[in-house]
């Protein structure tokens, strides 16, 4: 047995866009234990419900995360609508689905780029982000914002996608899809990528379930579970089956995300074809009185919002459980027994979003 040493990983580290600290207990080059600690960027957003009224809070909810911003707004709106028994127009539900899937594409492309950067494949990183830029342009043209969409509100959406813009969007998506295919081919087949990902950070199906993994981390371990199966927004009318891979290693998690890129494009096409004409929002009167657990699938996994109102314009309690928070225990399990050089790659495979986690 070699000498045990503790190596601090983070909060500032080249692979980490956001601060998380992990104490790595290493024996020679092997990690024997990982002790995570968070709390570097707590912003107190949950308590802000006491200051902002429930309609204004949509703007705060969207700012919980910079990448899945739209889905945070959507989860919050769906929760409040459920408490207030508001029937959202069908067109608005389809629009939310389209924007949600666009945000999933841009998040997964961002992750692919960061992953390529983590294992030192700079040109692949740049090409992933070049394609992501095209998706951001589509988002900007349809919602007005590149990262903070600002298009979801309680009672519907704030913008519509007219028919001619929709056909332009679908044409652009076709180009994006071809470009994504080129990048995904590299991720899935290139020897140097496989060398860094295959068999690294294996997490079994049983462990993934018992440790509460969500999203691609769970689906990469062979559990086909996805919150979109709850048929929120327009998913009830779309043909959707969750993607899962059985190996449970980093390569599986990467493969799940790559396959989801094309699944999202397909879902947008389906939604655009089935989207009915009509209103995009209903007038909201009164205040929320009651409580609700809102569950939505983000690019990183399932997000859970607990919303409680008492009939006043301010909510009494708001709680967000984000996917990264759920994926930290599986990460700790993955890190135990891995090589020290694989730590950055493994931390990235759960797609950590620390700002979300600490709210």
């Amino acid at each position, binding site marked *: 047995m070699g000498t045990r040493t503790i190596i601090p990983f983070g909060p500032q580290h080249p692979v980490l866009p956001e601060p998380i600290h992990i104490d790595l207990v290493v024996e020679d080059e092997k990690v024997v234990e990982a002790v995570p600690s968070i709390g570097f960027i707590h912003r107190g957003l949950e308590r802000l419900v006491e200051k*902002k009224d429930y309609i204004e809070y949509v703007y705060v909810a969207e700012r919980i995360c910079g990448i899945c911003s739209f889905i945070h707004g959507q989860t919050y709106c769906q929760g409040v609508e459920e408490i207030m028994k508001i029937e959202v127009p069908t067109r608005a539900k389809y629009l939310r689905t389209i924007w949600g899937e666009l945000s999933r594409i841009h998040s997964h492309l961002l992750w692919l780029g960061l992953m390529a950067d983590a294992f030192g494949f700079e040109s692949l990183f740049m*090409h992933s982000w070049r394609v992501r830029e095209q998706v951001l342009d589509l988002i*900007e*043209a349809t919602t007005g914002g590149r990262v903070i969409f600002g298009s979801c509100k309680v009672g519907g959406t*704030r913008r519509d996608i007219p028919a001619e813009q929709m056909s332009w969007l679908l044409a652009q998506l076709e180009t994006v899809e071809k470009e994504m295919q080129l990048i995904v081919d*590299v991720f899935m*087949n*290139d020897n140097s990528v496989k060398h860094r990902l295959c068999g690294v950070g294996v997490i079994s199906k049983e462990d993934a379930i018992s440790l509460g993994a969500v999203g691609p981390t769970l689906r990469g371990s062979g559990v086909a579970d996805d919150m979109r199966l709850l048929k929120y927004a327009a998913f009830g009318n779309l043909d959707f089956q969750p993607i899962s891979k059985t190996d449970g290693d980093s390569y599986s998690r990467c493969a799940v995300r790559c396959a989801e890129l094309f699944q999202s494009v397909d879902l947008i096409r389906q939604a655009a074809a089935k989207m009915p004409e009509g209103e995009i929002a209903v007038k909201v009167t009164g205040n929320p009185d009651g409580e609700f657990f809102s569950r939505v699938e983000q690019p990183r996994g399932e997000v859970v919002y607990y919303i409680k109102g008492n009939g006043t314009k301010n909510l009494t309690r708001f709680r967000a459980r984000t996917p990264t928070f759920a994926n930290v225990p599986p990460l700790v399990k993955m890190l135990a027994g891995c090589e020290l050089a694989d730590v950055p790659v493994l931390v990235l495979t759960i797609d950590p979003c620390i700002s979300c986690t600490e709210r």
Partner: protein
Amino acid sequence: MAFFQMKKMILAWTFRTPVTTKYPFEPRKICPGSRGRLDIKISDCIFCTLCAKRCPTQALNVDRTNKKWHIDRLRCISCNCCVEVCPKKCLHLTGDHGIPTVTKDWETF
């Protein structure tokens, strides 16, 4: 096992112009419908204060007595809320994001 999967893409991009632009020397292409800087047509404004009341970041201040409309550019999040509530439709968001600033001043119209 496949090696050099990217060679085709890399070769193709060797002979293309870069996708990045020489910002700030070359201005960014503005996407139509983008939410940028808030602009007001002050001659149409009736100083009803609705925009200031609905602003989620309190970036607007309307002085009814002196007929002045103030905005804190650094607080404005370009959410389009004021534009939606304005009864005279004198507010609109321009596509550009304005020039950088070093002081936190209120702009007055």
